[in-house]
């Protein structure tokens, strides 16, 4: 599928099509090692049919953000201590567990990285999909089964009627991931969260799954939050991107803009530190020599430096960066970043 041209997707204006609004989300973990602010003041919104990617490395808070949206953060040790999660007109943080259960898997659903651990091994595929349909859509057992088979067909599982009767272990990794996607979209959710949906899969299977996800978005109009560390997947799938570092949002922009002119030195570092295939470079010729490195390592969340969390690894860091966390502001139209010394000039990619 063709990616969006740079700068084409403008910042969506808040309108009636807005499906999700996350404001100042704070999810903390109370551990023996101290307070861990896994998600610290993250805000974003999502309109119908839009794909938003959240990228970052391990420990940046992207997965905890996803679990917070589903209200699946284990308590203890974790807790959503602040902010609001508005799905349509419902504030998810004000719901009791019973009311949340009506929404989870129904209006907001999630696909996990490892399908084998998220599917029930002792239930057939059909029963797992039917369960959600019977619970949320009040379908009869028979109607739910018919719909389950339709869903399996939709996600490209061959011989869906046959496959529906099988157990998860009888399916290959790719087929299991398709089945999980079928289950997630069975109730036609407004928001679908995919947390590293293809990271456990081989590259040819990954391409198939990404194709299925793109097709579902087109056909069902589901808004998608895609959580990944793979910038290739972001570039090909997302319209808008949020970059997270150490629990906070450090940059946000339309995908074309972000890759062509990243503002935050961390975003720029990520984009330039990955080797690229010859077929994917704009200039031909072998890529030799050294890769650009981001020095140092991701800081422990329980022991963040004062000021900007990225400052210890940043070539542009000044005294100010080490003292004070930079404000998150719109530096260019439609492009936000939290940085005292944003990258200027074209990087061109």
């Amino acid at each position: 599928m063709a990616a969006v041209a740079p700068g084409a997707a403008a910042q969506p204006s808040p309108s009636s099509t807005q499906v999700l609004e996350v404001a100042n989300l704070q999810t903390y973990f109370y551990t023996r090692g101290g307070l861990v602010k896994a998600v610290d003041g993250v805000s974003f919104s999502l309109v119908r049919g839009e794909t938003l990617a959240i990228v970052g490395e391990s420990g940046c808070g992207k997965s905890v953000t996803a679990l917070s949206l589903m209200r699946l953060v284990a308590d203890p040790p974790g807790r959503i201590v602040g902010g609001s999660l508005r799905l349509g007109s419902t504030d998810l943080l004000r719901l009791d567990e019973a009311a949340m259960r009506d929404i989870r898997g129904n209006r907001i659903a999630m696909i996990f990285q490892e399908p084998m651990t998220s599917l029930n091994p002792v239930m057939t595929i059909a029963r797992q999909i039917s369960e959600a349909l019977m619970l949320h859509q009040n379908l009869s057992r028979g109607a739910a089964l018919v719909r389950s088979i339709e869903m399996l067909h939709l996600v490209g599982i061959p011989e869906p009627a046959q496959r529906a009767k099988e157990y998860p272990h009888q399916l290959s990794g790719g087929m299991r991931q398709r089945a999980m996607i079928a289950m997630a979209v069975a109730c036609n959710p407004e928001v679908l969260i995919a947390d590293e949906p293809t990271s456990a899969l081989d590259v040819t299977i990954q391409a198939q799954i990404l194709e299925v996800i793109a097709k579902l978005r087109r056909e069902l109009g589901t808004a998608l939050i895609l959580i990944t560390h793979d910038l290739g997947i972001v570039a090909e799938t997302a319209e808008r991107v949020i970059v997270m570092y150490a629990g906070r949002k450090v940059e946000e922009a339309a995908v074309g803009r972000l890759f062509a002119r990243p503002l935050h030195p961390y975003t720029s570092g990520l984009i330039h530190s990955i080797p690229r295939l010859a077929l994917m470079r704009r200039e031909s010729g072998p890529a030799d020599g050294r890769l650009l490195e981001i020095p140092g390592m991701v800081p422990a969340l329980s022991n963040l430096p004062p000021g900007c969390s990225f400052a210890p690894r940043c070539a542009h860091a000044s005294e100010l960066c080490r003292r004070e966390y930079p404000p998150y502001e719109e530096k260019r139209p439609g492009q936000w970043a939290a940085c005292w010394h944003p990258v200027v000039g074209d990087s061109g990619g």
Partner: protein
Amino acid sequence: MVEPVAPLLQVEGLTKHFPVKRGVLRRTIGQVRAVDGVSFTIGAGETLGLVGESGCGKTTVGRSLLRLIEPTSGSIRIDGRDITRLSRAELRPFRRQMQIIFQDPFSSLNPRMRAGDIVGEPLKVHGVESKRERRSRVAQLFDRVGLRAAQMDAFPHQFSGGQRQRIGVARALALNPRLIVGDEPVSALDVSIQAQVINLLMDLQRELGLSYLFISHNLAVVEHISHRVAVMYLGRIVEHTDKVTLFTRPLHPYTEALLYAVPVPDPAIKRDKRVVQGDVPSPLNPPPGCHFHPRCPYAEARCKLEAPALREIEPAHFAACHLLNQ
């Protein structure tokens, strides 16, 4: 590309079958042909990249070279000397020359040993008796891989993933090996850390003249680090040539499928997607003929019957496909 030097490592017809056992009596009910007649060479100072998807046998090849897995048949030669059937004692001097770095820096280091002792252990095993001598050599190695000598007394859990992988590299370097097998050495690392370890490996190669067998599923990393690349599918090499040719003019339909499946990290580049359909077949029951034929968009009747041999299609460009150059 012509072989620049006499090959340090020469692998011929390497085959490894694992028996599949079932039932109480553990009777053998079949064989997994994990590696099925693989041949390649690696010269001094050269990196051969070995790519393929899960179950293709690339890890088994890497481990067989060090005889961590005993090959079923075939030969492995170091400087022309066949080490395939040497006894443990006879193998020892050759083991020094070949080391391995594993994928997971969390499970490949003993959590109860101090980092310095982990790196120094190969020295101890291979007869460096003096403790002081070992410590000074370990300190040197720490410095070389970008760790501080002061960290020698820390335990693995006190290091980050990238630092642990540096410990793994230091351990591999301890005995001045000539060949290092890297089995997905950067796959478990974060993107920003991957570049650090790749650069380290390439610097070490330049300085020490090391040879690498670099096993990975990440095509972009393999292209960056390798001189030559072999692509494996279900136990066999399907294409093998220098990296520039392989990544710009692939011949085998599977190589092409792999390259086109990798998402492009640049939204300004539009590329028609050619998504290859179907699953990777089970190595327990591979399709007859060309293993790739059920997924191959160009497959013909012949592909279902006859396994194609790896042939030199263009000078120094090998591929196993019936449809090339007929």
